[in-house]
């Protein structure tokens, strides 16, 4: 047991190191640099520009040799300092991210969990009901196959413009300031609904289709046939099939949960929702090395943590992985 987790931990640490290194490298491969980008937004004369250029380049540490930038990056990272955002200068990246994360979690956590629960249960029912399978499953296929941004825009257009029941942009109305009042909370919920609903629908279709296929497969498995031959009630056979079919869905859920902090980039762009996805797009457009690094760092940590958690959960729910574990330790 200890050996298993020790080995896993080592692999995760190694992955973390490599991923963070790539995270540091990638923005620097882009042509141009953040300082040039910042200066392009202000109109000053050339002498002032060259002074500012020098000042900012030094401030961001971009005048150092690359290897030293890299070492400084790790040193700061281990101290919890992600640097200063160039795009939202002079806010520190950590603060920018912390402001965005609550929106992501509030949007994605319910969307992912609820769609997982509903999709799996619906898929399991659809697997044994011809009628449901022929009517609702095709809708699931269409939903999953639809380009998401198109669906999002369609929803925004229909509910926001035609019916005019939901706002289509922002996390709350511009006329309100964040307070703990019913009016504000209601407003936030109203803004939250469309992005949530669009995510829910698309993921629901995916889970339902996966579960439907898994259940059909499990009901054809030998252990199901054996129980049938022994005249076991359908409820028992279905329960066993569900328990077996849900295992691969669990790993899928873990991967989804891992990218929560990454936000749903397209959703947030379509609905102008101020999560990390929205931020990441802005960061890339402005070549903000530090903000890009910060966003990706959260994604890396999220994915690794989720995988680690699911490794443990799997050991708890699936005896077969447990055997592999002791087998390797022996």
């Amino acid at each position, binding site marked *: 047991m200890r050996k298993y987790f020790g080995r896993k931990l080592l692999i995760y640490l190694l992955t973390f190191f490599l991923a963070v290194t790539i995270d540091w490298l990638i923005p620097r491969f882009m042509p141009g640099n953040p300082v040039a980008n910042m200066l392009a937004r202000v109109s000053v004369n050339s002498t002032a520009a060259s002074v500012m250029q020098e000042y900012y380049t030094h401030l961001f540490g971009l005048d150092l040799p690359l290897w030293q930038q890299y070492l400084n990056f790790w040193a700061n990272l281990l101290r919890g300092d992600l640097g200063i955002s160039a795009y939202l200068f002079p806010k520190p990246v950590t603060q920018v991210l912390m402001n965005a994360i609550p929106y992501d979690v509030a949007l994605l956590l319910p969307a992912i969990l609820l769609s997982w629960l509903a999709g799996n249960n619906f898929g399991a029912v659809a697997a044994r009901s011809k009628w449901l399978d022929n009517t609702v499953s095709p809708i699931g296929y269409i939903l999953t196959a639809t380009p998401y941004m198109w669906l999002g825009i369609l929803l925004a257009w229909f509910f926001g413009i035609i019916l005019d029941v939901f706002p289509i942009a922002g996390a709350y109305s511009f006329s309100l300031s964040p307070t703990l009042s019913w009016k504000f909370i209601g407003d936030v919920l109203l803004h939250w609904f469309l992005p949530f609903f669009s995510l829910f629908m698309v993921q629901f279709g995916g889970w339902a289709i996966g579960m439907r296929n898994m259940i059909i497969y499990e009901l054809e498995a*030998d*252990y199901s046939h*054996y129980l049938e031959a022994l005249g076991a*009630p359908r409820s028992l056979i279905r329960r066993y099939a569900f328990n077996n079919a849900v*295992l691969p869905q669990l790993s899928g859920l873990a991967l989804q949960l891992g990218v929560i902090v990454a936000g749903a980039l397209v959703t947030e762009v379509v609905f102008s929702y101020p999560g990390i996805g929205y931020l990441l797009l802005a960061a890339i457009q402005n070549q903000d090395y530090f903000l890009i690094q910060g966003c990706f760092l959260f994604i890396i940590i999220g994915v690794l943590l989720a995988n680690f958690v699911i490794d443990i959960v799997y050991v708890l729910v699936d*005896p077969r992985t447990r055997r592999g574990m002791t087998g390797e330790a022996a």
Partner: protein
Amino acid sequence: MLQVENLTVYYQTLKGQVRALENASFTLADGEIMGLAGESGCGKTTLGHSLIHLSPPMTHIGGRVLLNGQELPLADMQKMDAYRFNEISIIPQYAMNAMNPIRKIGQMTEELLRAKKADVKTVMAALKDRLEMVKLPQEVLGLYPIELSGGMKQRMVMVLSTLLDPELLIADEITSALDVASQKAVSEMLVEFRDQHCCNSVIFITHDISILYQIADSILIMYAGQLAEKASTETIIHNPRHPYTRLLISALPEIGVRYSDKRLTGIPGKTPLLLNPPQGCRFRERCPLAFEKCAEVPPFVEIEPGHSVACWKEGSADA
């Protein structure tokens, strides 16, 4: 006692009906172990399964089955549930994968018994003795199926299937996946189960006649969906009457014969496809004794007590 009368079961496929079992009639006495043998695809598994779980694409075309004088509702999936496991049970061909991989064996057994509304306490107590009979340690109940070896799983399923002391046990190719030593052990355990009244009559499906010679009281030979011959084991081995049985038995290796000197013979030809089987006796094409009359289906008649044959050359004319 089991009576099968004119049982006919077809497979419904896109290309048409596959006539896998045609007009099967035989009886099985109390405590009898009947070997059911034949080539692959001759319908022996179809016969076994149709007695317990006649599910699509299998369709019940005709005939009936009586168990202790009571007719079984073969085609009614719901009504049959009352008989399954309680009266009729099966050790499936796929015993290696027959148990839910993510449940401990003991827990699964309990859940199954509870779902069947059996007396869980008594049966679980009996289970301990049964495990001893097949030489499995009590600890297996706390293990997952994957933690057992193939032979252990086979024996575990054997115990599971016979927990409620069924009247009829169908053992479907239970020795096929095992090595010769385990084959012998498992088949002897089956005989002991019968002797200890863990099950009453047994239908032992196999293509290995030498195993049957050791454990079966009688043997039923099938060919291409039709019954060919049924008699006591001794009679089938030493005095077979159906030409197919004769060729089959003569193809078995004998002790004391060196097959480097004399090649082992087979039966020339191939089994017919059952999608569109030939009229009359289905063995006609390969039969050395075939004559005009074989274009009609020969009846499965008793030529002497306990010995039935479906062949025009036997039965009425000969004897």
